[in-house]
């Protein structure tokens, strides 16, 4: 009993209990629970003021999720997912949430910089955007004048644009087309190009949409979708929806135990590059045990079950076991489960396709879905649904002469280029480059044998003028002669769309805030440059850029999209961020629901849409059923009905790829034993991986993310480690034929015993002081400027980047870099080795270029590896510039 308040605790409780009974009669208090709705509103915790909410499209990674930026006093203070976005449904990943730190990063380049010292010496002079665009325009004009004087349009190809993550909605392409240069080189061959080339000739699009939310069985090969890979965030959510709401069984194949393996019902770690053997063996089981969908194969593919059975004869599960290490009994069991559980889908990302012959791997995985009839079914393996936007007319005609830079004629099937070959082509004098421009591109960090790029950048004879649009001082930008910094993605205008849901959408990137400190978005710089190259309009370029500014340009891109105008057009997008609005996200089921709470259904069976009479007007039907009009296949006739079909020449899924055969590749998916599979017992295969809080190269300086993940020790299995006398945390040397790096060992069961795995995102030698962790290297750095760095950085390890020792070797079909094909030795560090040492040979790297060309269709290894292909090897088509599809 308390002397001031004569009531016991028991008494209090009693009173409380009685009060609870009448609580509703007491009415609402002034104190309200904090807003707990699914986003869309935010308040200042200090003033209580409603913050301005501006929708945008994320572009920290390539998934393009929708976000809402909250702005207070002209500053972005918080980002969250756009609750009306069908793709990411109100959620951003850690990278997306911390995106505004890109904007306010003290190490961001805020003004154009002109190099004054030697290349890469770090000596710059600040200049204005006007001066910078004038200088670049004069360099471009010089090349154009030379081309015109010589009446040789191929000279214009000496103007080269190399890009990495280009989400400029075609702005870069339009700019280069106006300049008349085909010297345009992307980055897709270090990304997933062999996946695309495995899929496109098979059914049209370059990717699948696995309907995880509705599937009963998800079979994933090397696609760590819970934390990285394509459509991470949207697909991670849907996979979890499937698992929690639909009891989806998840079976995962990956030599490393990432988070997808961790949530899988079963995780298998195959030898790298042998997924295709497992897949073909599963197909073997499904076909031979008659678990296939006979009608679907006969109606919708260009092969018969009999042909498939014959083709798969050489891939029994025991063969796959010998190659992959996965037990034949498991392969059989999973094949049966997969074929008999409906609906089911596969998914794969870089794991299988980033090998030499990666295109076969992807084609084989797709085949599993086709033979089981899971294509375009609810819960199955679906076509991607994207939405296009406009390129306002009049459009520039483009370059007149083909360029082979980054698109060598030895790779005619590699429709997404072979960008890795660029520096070798330049250094070997095969192609000339006068002006190089780069955008969101950092090959001196992101490419295999990255030191080769560095050597090219440093050489002013090979590269007379180099301009970068990077707003960060990357490993590549540091070699530029001129930097014209773009803004961060929150200060620019672009249209964007991604097939991250079964309901197609189009989104907007807009200036959430005015470009910080009067910086200038990429589009504005392009407009300025064109207007200076063609100041009087006599070159005919200016007419293609009648836009006052970036926003006007993007507004024009949204015109003509059916249905958008009626909903409010561009202004609707500015307000809502994404179009159309399909409904609300149900916070319990995560599904998009209508006003009545019913799920807004997605459309399936796109290939079975019947063609209208108008579409058929003037069309003809070929013997194989392909419906042709104007020289193009518009559909396919099956059992007397005219269907939309798939995006192939026959309108069917082409498991048999005539285009492959033309160049001596096997038209059917096959297993080719890789050199790495024949490694010596004490060697390991080096693989790399992305982590859930970083992009490959652009986030090491983002403070929140750097704190979460900043070092990347090499994952090594206890068995392999013990054999080499290596303990967890030991300093180790990882050595390939190119040289070695010195890093640390992370000894873990979560990695295949024949593999050593090192993540990307760490070990920067540029990209700002946090990425480089220069503050800890106090002998040569000043602290005392950024209090976060002075006081909050508790780690002293920035990791070690593996790319310098990764060998150039590309898939001769899809052109992809074989990221996971480098054989290494791992040993304890030697006396004198220091953590972070990198010693690599340029000469050895140059040899790899010659070696990988031997696998191209023109090379001797191609024939040796494709003896089974029945063609006249002496009559292969001649290599042709611009011959890629």
């Amino acid at each position, binding site marked *: 009993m308390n002397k001031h308040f004569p009531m016991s605790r028991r008494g209090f409780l009693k009173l409380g209990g009685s009060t609870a009974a009448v609580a509703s009669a007491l009415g609402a208090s002034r104190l309200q629970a904090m807003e707990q709705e699914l986003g869309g509103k935010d308040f200042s915790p200090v003033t209580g003021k409603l913050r301005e909410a501006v929708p945008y499209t994320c572009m920290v990674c390539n998934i393009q999720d929708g976000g809402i930026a909250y702005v207070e006093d002209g500053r972005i203070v918080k980002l969250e997912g756009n609750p009306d976005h069908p793709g990411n449904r109100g959620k951003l990943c850690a990278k997306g949430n911390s995106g505004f730190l890109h904007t306010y990063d003290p190490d961001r380049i805020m003004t154009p*910089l002109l190099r004054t010292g030697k290349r890469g010496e770090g000596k710059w*002079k600040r200049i204005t955007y006007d001066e910078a665009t004038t200088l670049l325009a004069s360099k471009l004009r010089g090349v154009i004048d030379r081309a015109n004087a010589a009446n040789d349009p191929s000279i214009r190809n000496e103007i080269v644009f190399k890009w990495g993550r280009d989400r400029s909605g075609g702005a870069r392409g339009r700019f280069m087309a106006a300049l008349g240069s085909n010297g345009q080189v992307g980055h897709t061959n270090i990304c997933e190009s062999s996946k695309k080339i495995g899929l496109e000739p098979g059914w049209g699009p370059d990717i699948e949409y696995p309907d995880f939310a509705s599937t009963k069985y998800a079979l994933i090969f090397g696609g760590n979708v819970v934390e990285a890979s394509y459509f991470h965030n949207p697909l991670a959510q849907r996979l979890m929806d499937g698992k929690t709401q639909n009891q989806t069984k998840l079976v995962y194949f990956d030599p490393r135990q990432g988070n997808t393996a961790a949530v899988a019902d079963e995780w298998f770690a195959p030898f790298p590059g042998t997924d295709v053997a497992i897949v073909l063996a599963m197909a073997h089981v499904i076909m031979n045990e008659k678990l296939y969908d006979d009608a679907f194969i006969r109606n919708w593919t260009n092969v018969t079950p009999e042909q498939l059975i014959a083709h798969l004869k050489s891939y029994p599960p025991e063969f796959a076991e010998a190659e992959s290490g996965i037990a034949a009994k498991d392969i059989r069991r999973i094949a049966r489960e997969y074929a008999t559980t409906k609906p089911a889908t596969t998914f794969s990302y870089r794991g299988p396709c980033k090998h030499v012959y990666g295109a076969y791997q992807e084609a084989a995985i797709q085949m599993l879905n086709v033979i089981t009839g899971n294509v375009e079914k609810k819960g199955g393996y679906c076509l991607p649904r994207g939405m296009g936007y406009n390129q306002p007319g009049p459009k520039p005609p483009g370059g007149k002469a083909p360029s082979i830079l980054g698109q060598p004629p030895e790779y005619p099937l590699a429709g997404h280029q072979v960008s890795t070959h660029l520096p070798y082509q330049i250094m070997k004098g095969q192609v000339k480059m006068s002006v190089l421009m780069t955008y969101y591109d950092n090959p001196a960090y992101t490419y295999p044998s990255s030191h080769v790029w560095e050597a090219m950048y440093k050489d002013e004879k090979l590269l007379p003028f180099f301009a970068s649009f990077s707003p960060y001082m990357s490993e590549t930008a540091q070699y530029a002669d001129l930097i014209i910094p773009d803004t961060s993605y929150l200060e620019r205008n672009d249209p964007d769309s991604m097939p991250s849901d079964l309901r197609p959408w189009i989104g907007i990137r807009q200036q959430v805030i005015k470009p910080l400190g009067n910086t200038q978005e990429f589009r504005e710089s392009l407009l300025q440059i064109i207007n200076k190259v063609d100041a009087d309009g006599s070159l005919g370029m200016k007419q293609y850029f009648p836009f006052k500014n970036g926003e006007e340009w993007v507004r024009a891109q949204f015109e003509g999209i059916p249905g958008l105008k009626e909903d409010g057009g561009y202004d609707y997008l500015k307000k809502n961020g994404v179009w159309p609005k399909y409904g609300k996200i149900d916070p319990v089921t995560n599904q998009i629901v209508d006003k009545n709470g019913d799920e807004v259904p997605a459309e399936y069976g796109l290939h079975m849409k019947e063609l209208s009479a108008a579409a058929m007007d003037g069309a003809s039907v070929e013997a194989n059923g392909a419906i042709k009009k104007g020289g193009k296949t518009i559909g396919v006739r099956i059992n007397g009905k005219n269907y939309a079909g798939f995006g192939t020449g026959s309108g069917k899924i082409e498991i048999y790829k005539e285009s492959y055969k033309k160049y001596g590749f096997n038209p059917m998916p096959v297993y080719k034993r890789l050199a790495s599979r024949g490694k010596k017992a004490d060697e390991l295969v080096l693989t790399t991986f992305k982590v859930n809080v970083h992009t490959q190269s652009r986030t090491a300086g983002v403070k929140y993310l750097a704190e979460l993940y900043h070092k990347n020790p090499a994952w090594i299995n206890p068995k392999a480690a013990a054999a080499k006398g290596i303990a967890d945390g030991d300093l180790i040397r990882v050595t390939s034929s190119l040289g070695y790096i010195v890093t640390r060992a992370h000894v873990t069961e979560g990695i295949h015993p024949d593999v050593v795995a090192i993540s990307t995102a760490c070990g920067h030698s540029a990209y700002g002081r946090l990425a480089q962790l220069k503050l800890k290297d106090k002998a040569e750095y000043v602290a005392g400027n950024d209090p976060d760095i002075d006081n909050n950085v508790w780690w002293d390890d920035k990791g070690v980047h593996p790319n310098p020792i990764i060998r150039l070797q590309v898939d001769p079909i899809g052109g992809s870099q074989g990221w996971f094909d480098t054989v290494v030795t791992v040993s304890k560090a030697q006396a004198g080795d220091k953590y972070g040492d990198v010693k690599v040979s340029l000469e050895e790297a140059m040899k790899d270029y010659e070696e990988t060309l031997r696998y191209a269709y023109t090379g001797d290894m191609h024939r040796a590896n494709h003896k089974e292909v029945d063609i006249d090897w002496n009559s292969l088509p001649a290599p042709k510039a611009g011959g890629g599809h």
Partner: protein
Amino acid sequence: MQTLIERVVDGVWRDECGAQGALFKLLARVIEYEVDQPLLDSLRGELREPLAEAGAEVPEDLLTGDPAKVVEDLAVEYTALFVQPGAISPHASVFQTGKMFQEPADRAANWYRENGFVFTHRFSGEFPDHAGVMMSFVSALFEREADALDRGDAAAAQVIHETRERFLIEEMGEWVPAWCRTAAQAAEHPFYERMMNLTGRVLWDELTQIVPPRRLRELSEKNARGPVVVAKDPGFRKASGL
């Protein structure tokens, strides 16, 4: 020590305001923008001796080198020191919050606005909380105070006087002296090293005149946040991505 009133009466204070205004203007100019030909001429001419006396001798290469080259070299040094990634950012937001363009920038802009100034960009990447702009604001307030005294408007002079002191203490006192020390240590050219040291000394001297001892101790602690010793390694800016 005379009181302010006594000093005003004596006319000493008016002259001091004028002198301080000019001194802050020079220091602000050096921090705000690259040295140009007219400034170089002044450094070689009328400013040479007084700077030497103040302990910031104009370095030999500035006095004798080809003017165009000197201007160019100093622009490179300026960019490295104050502009490019990894520079010693002259912005309070970076120095105090680790991010560009935060509340200190708004506060600075408010001060300027309330006193009839607007902040304008010359280059991109400049913000109102730039140390040079702040110095320039102090200089302008010194000049205004001198003008008011010239006009005999003691009340106006007093208001300006108090505004300036508050601005110095509230917006600059906690970080600019430390920033000057950091920048001086990072400078690779003796001109900037000396000018940053001079700026730090001038500012601290001013603060000691206007800040009560306890608050001065606080400011001293805040400014003690220290730069570490920098070896003048030629690779210093290169590898760090500066």
